[in-house]
């Protein structure tokens, strides 16, 4: 059922989609279920008034967040991953423990920012996840810089970032992609085209609504994939990462998908998002699709899936409890950390 990636620029055809083993597919399933469950729980906590700020969900985009992170090497010496705010799954796959996600949303000391930042502004050296900023597209040049560092040192690591359709309108998208192309660095750019930027439909964002075509203006090989098909995203990513590691310069992947709710939990999206389209895309739910594929195409017993779902339930439960029990950082910490004492701290 995996939609083959469509190759755009005049570059080597991508290798045929790698065969994804049953174990790998089940692994993807685990992460997607975990992502969905974590987000559902967080949204409930938000509604109960237990999370300050607002809550941004990536429901319906888990195939992208999980699919793009899975092929990457983990750890401080692994690949750089700077995911967009819809990509909670990427953080999990790349190593951030679930409870720290909840701690982050709650602003607790156990958050990766010790409560200094909220939302999916999460990261840390131990996972090689920089802490994203709010300003859309700003992380693109940073990702190019990480890729440059790897190239300078001759390491076969890659740097990956994801962003929404709205981010493609910003100057830093342009400057970052152009520099990446010219310097031929091992960076993968993952565009998540969910057709909305807050209340702005993609038709008011750009005349070129196929985002992969934008990569052409930089000479970056680009593919377009079904963003609701985790196997398609995963396969495209495996290929892009392989090209990067082989020193063939940056790659661009557009994942076509749809935003399945408001911009954030406080957004009354019913006033502007057509309900028919939401219903239509709801049928394409990436988790349902993977489940179907596992059950029907791969004939995996439902019991195995059920076990995964149970495991996730427990994990999320424990995570929330741990985050709940966690305290806030001491207010004195607000004064600390403006400057680093050492580069390796």
């Amino acid at each position, binding site marked *: 059922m995996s939609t083959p990636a469509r190759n755009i620029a005049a570059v080597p055809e991508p290798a045929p989609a790698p065969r994804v083993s049953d174990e790998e597919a089940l692994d993807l399933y685990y992460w997607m279920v975990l992502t969905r469950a974590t987000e559902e729980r967080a949204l409930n906590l938000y509604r109960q008034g237990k999370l300050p700020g607002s809550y941004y969900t990536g429901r319906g985009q888990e195939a992208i967040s999980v699919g793009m992170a899975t092929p990457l090497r983990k750890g401080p010496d692994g690949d750089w991953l700077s995911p967009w705010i819809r990509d909670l799954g990427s953080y999990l796959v790349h190593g951030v423990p679930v409870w720290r996600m909840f701690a982050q949303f709650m*602003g607790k000391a156990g958050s990766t920012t010790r409560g200094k930042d909220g939302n999916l502004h999460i990261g840390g050296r131990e996972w090689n996840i920089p802490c994203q900023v*709010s*300003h*859309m597209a700003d992380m693109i040049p940073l990702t190019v810089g990480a890729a440059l560092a790897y190239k300078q040192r001759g390491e076969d690591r890659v740097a990956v970032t994801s962003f929404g359709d709205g981010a493609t*309108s*910003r100057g830093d998208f342009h400057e970052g992609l152009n520099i990446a192309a010219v310097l031929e660095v091992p960076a993968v750019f993952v565009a998540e085209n969910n057709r909305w930027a807050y*209340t702005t439909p993609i038709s008011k964002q750009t005349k070129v609504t196929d985002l992969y075509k934008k990569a052409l203006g930089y000479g970056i090989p680009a593919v377009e994939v079904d963003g609701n098909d985790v196997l398609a995203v995963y396969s495209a990513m495996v290929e892009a990462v392989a090209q990067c590691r082989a020193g063939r310069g940056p790659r661009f992947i557009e994942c076509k998908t749809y935003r399945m709710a408001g911009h954030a939990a406080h957004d009354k999206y019913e006033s502007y998002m057509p309900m028919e389209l939401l219903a239509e895309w709801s049928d394409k739910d990436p988790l349902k699709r993977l489940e179907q594929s596992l059950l029907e195409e791969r004939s995996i017993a439902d019991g195995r899936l059920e076990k995964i779902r149970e495991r996730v339930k427990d994990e999320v439960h424990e995570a929330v409890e741990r985050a709940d029990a966690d305290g806030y*950082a001491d207010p004195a910490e*607000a004064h600390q950390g*403006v400057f680093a004492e050492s580069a390796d701290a």
Partner: protein
Amino acid sequence: MPELTYLEAIRAALHDEMEIDDRVFVMGEDVGRQGGAFGATKELQQRFGELRSIDTPVAESGIVGVAVGAAMSGQRPVAEMQFADFVSCAFDQLITCAAKMHYRIGWAVPMVVRCPNGGGVGGGPYHSENVEAWFHHHAGLKIVCPATAVDAYGLLRSAIRDPNPVVFCEHKFLYRRVKQDVATGPRDGQLVPLGKAAVVREGTDLSIITYASTVQLSLAVADSLAAQDVSAEVVDLRTLVPFDRETVLASVRKTGKALIVHEDNLTGGFGGEVAAVIAQDAFEHLDAPVRRVAALDTPIPFAPPLEREYLPLESDILSAAADLAAY
């Protein structure tokens, strides 16, 4: 006279100026059908059409640059930053094109950039900045920071009519928390001139010089001080550029003591400039050190206890004022 929140006053000002001047239009991310992230431009598109309430791509530098070009071409653009923080992306256009055009060539750039400013709303480092002090260094930009609904209305209308680029800092914390009777109406609405500070409370023992979200806090402090028989004058600057130096100096010359308060962080905040002016031009009347109360020199932390630590609180102002009074 309708009772309006600060936010409603802003919307009313936009509406009333659009009503009487065809050249005025709003633009920005989600300002059209949605009416903006906070609703400041609500229903303006329905009333004035898509050419006067323009939804733009996410591109702050482009938005401000487009506003500059339109302003130079006879229009009166009011560009919205979804949050003030994102004006960082438009910094170049503001200081390079908007600020310096008239000086170089005598060609006016009548435009407004609306910046929803400030903390206290759990927004974290990137949805809480006070941006007014990013710009006063750059000659050619006016900077407005209203503290009340009446001022928000009257100053915004004046800003739109002003022939210069104006950075209009609206405080998000005040949006729905401040309410006042506001004289609105395309023709009868009450304007507030740019460049005039307001002595919002008279006093004789010390001057609290402030603006925006800390005006209310300072008034509350003045109340507390009055209970201790200390008479504090409170000056609301209202606009930082032009800076109403005369009102500030007159106040300090009268009281002999100056406490400068803003929510923005201390170093490089506008308070430094105010303190420097006082230390030079009211020195002979000073009976005490010039004090500043402001936020920490750090990014703005997200978690409620950390953000509280970051922000200047009423108690911080009170204790500084009491010290100063006792000096």
